[in-house]
């Protein structure tokens, strides 16, 4: 379907119906907002699959079930394959007009679940895979994942005199997905909800596999007050440490290309996970950001 044919969902016409409530997520949780908004776009004829991780942990505590639509917890590595089975099984039974969506964390996606996800994209399964990225294994107590940024203090990358937190950079998850020549891939942030909603809507109208990588604040794991949860998710994009982009038909597109960046330092030092960073650490982070943007500006659009 041509992207312009899709009826836009905006704050004016978005449904009042709630599909994810009564859960036990912390106040200000970006992941739960990503799930809530996506389901409003996808509607009740949706099967949601959630691997082990915060969103499944807070949403399915018997007898308090938080999803109005069909939802199921998968094994930690098996979200994409269980969603594939649901999508294919429903088709085999002759079901029409339904969606299958995964909501998985950064660890469940970029680390332990990447094999099953790669397989699902290879088969071009008719599923939407949403990775809510809170940049660590939160459910198990803030350990480092493949999407934890450089310098982050986690419980397995302590910030000490010798090592200042995580020593690796975020995996290029979006580009790894695009390298599969996936039907549709995008990055988003809960700080830019309209952009996120548009992308979920586009995924809804895409045949085959869609992937959306949404930046999702975690006040508990990042050490920030809940009231700045959305602001932080905006600043991550504005500072250039996260970016909004899309991939379709072998084309990359930057949705937001700021002339100047919000100061990295101001974004980082609000969060206790980055409080220990030295000027030199921040220089390394900025340098990495600049290289990335140089590449994106040259090759995308």
């Amino acid at each position, binding site marked *: 379907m041509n992207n312009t044919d899709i009826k836009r969902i905006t704050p004016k016409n978005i449904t009042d119906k709630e599909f994810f409530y009564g859960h036990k997520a912390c106040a200000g949780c970006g992941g739960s907002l990503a799930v809530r908004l996506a389901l409003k776009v996808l509607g*009740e*004829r949706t*099967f949601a*699959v959630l691997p082990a991780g915060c969103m*499944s*942990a807070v*949403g*399915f*505590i*018997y*007898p308090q*079930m*938080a*999803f*109005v*639509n*069909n*939802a*199921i*917890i*998968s*094994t930690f*590595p*098996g979200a*994409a*394959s*269980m*969603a*594939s*089975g*649901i*999508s*294919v*099984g*429903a*088709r*085999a*039974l002759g*079901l029409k007009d*339904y969606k299958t969506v995964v909501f998985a964390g950064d660890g469940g996606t970029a680390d332990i679940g990447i*094999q*099953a996800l*790669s*397989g699902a994209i*290879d*088969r071009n399964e008719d599923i939407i895979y949403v990775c809510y990225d809170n940049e660590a294994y939160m459910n198990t107590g803030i350990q480092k994942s493949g999407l934890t940024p450089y310098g982050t203090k986690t419980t397995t990358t302590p910030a000490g005199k010798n090592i200042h937190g995580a020593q690796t950079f975020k995996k290029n998850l979006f580009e790894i997905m695009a390298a599969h020549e996936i039907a549709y891939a995008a990055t988003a942030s809960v700080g830019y909800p309209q952009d996120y909603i548009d992308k979920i809507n586009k995924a809804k109208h895409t045949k085959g596999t869609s992937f959306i990588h949404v930046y999702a604040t975690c006040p508990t794991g990042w050490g920030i007050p809940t009231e700045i949860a959305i602001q932080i998710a905006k600043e991550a994009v504005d500072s250039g440490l996260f970016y909004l982009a899309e991939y379709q038909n072998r084309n990359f597109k930057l949705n937001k290309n700021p002339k100047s960046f919000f100061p990295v330092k101001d974004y980082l030092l609000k969060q206790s996970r980055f409080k220990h960073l030295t000027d030199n650490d921040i220089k390394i982070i900025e340098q990495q950001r600049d290289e990335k943007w140089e590449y994106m500006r040259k090759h995308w659009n």
Partner: protein
Amino acid sequence: MSKKLFISGDEAVAIGTKLSRPNVISAYPITPQTVTVERLSEMVESGELKAEYMHVESEHSAMSAAMGVSAVGARAFTATSSQGLLYMAEGLHYASGGRYPIVMMNANRSLALPWSIYGDQRDSLSLLDSGWIQVYVEDAQEALDMIIQAYKIAENKDVLTPFMVNLDGFVLTHTYELVEIPEQEKVDKFLPPFQTPNKMSFEEPKNMAFSTTPADNLEYKYQQNRAMLNSIDVINDVDKEFGDKFDRYYGGMVQEYRCDDADVVIFTLGSITGTVRMIVDKLRDEGKKVGLLKIRYMRPFPEKEIIKLAGKVKAIGVVEKDISFGYEGTVYTNVNSALSKLDNAPLSLDFLCGMGGRDVSKSDIYNMFISLFKAVNGEKQKRVQFINMGVETDE
């Protein structure tokens, strides 16, 4: 009219699967299961089998996809062996806890290390506690028939438990025999389409596979155990119904052979049964009172049947292609747990053999019976015996 085909065990499983009309097959290749998934792929290609074939990227995903299929109320099939079975171990417990009646063929094969593609039963026996019904078949005919029965038993509303059909790698998967192919119409009457309350639907949305607190968990495990115990009656009923329709009865939980007045009985699992049956005949011709008990199901365990038989005999030998390191064979441990419920249990010996595909000859079996008779006559025998070892040991 049903017809007969000269086919391998793997092919028999493929045909049994086709006749059971699964909606989706998700599988990953591994020797010696491969022929089964190749045949199924061909059947899907030709349109002979109206099912979706999912080319999953691993066994973990094969099981994960099968659970997704079952969770929307569709019939799922998968097949694996050895390393693949262990790779999906997380999913095995998950599927039984979720009460998804998936049917899986497992080609029994040794586990690395050392690497070996040949048969033994350490793969499935190491997963006895995963909550799957486990049947072990003796030949290709039984393999075909048990796939059909498996769906009927697993999908029974009082059971809703996944089902593993085990057949010995190579000895069964790759040897050819004449197999009677049931007619599709008759199978359709025997096995109606899958219906389950345990599914997600748009009429009745559900949140499935949830978490529990310590306040609720044990009750789920109790129910799961009850379901497995319920399957015993269902297994026996289905065996009878299948026999009435297709003229082949397997005896349900176990199959006895010449046990009526036997003093010494050997218990078997899988394809070795045929060899033991021949030796029983030979010894009977020599006037020795011997018999054979083919254990068909390891889970649920045929405790009642074993106790009933054991009360009448003097010695039991367990032949198994398995060892639980640091103790004894797992089948033997299970049999002895049943024997412990008798006031005067017969003596028992454990014969560990056939591991990694090692041959078990007729004379090996003959010698096991001799050892059992010696034990009955008071001559001391090793309780756990490694059969057909290639080297001398200092024991």
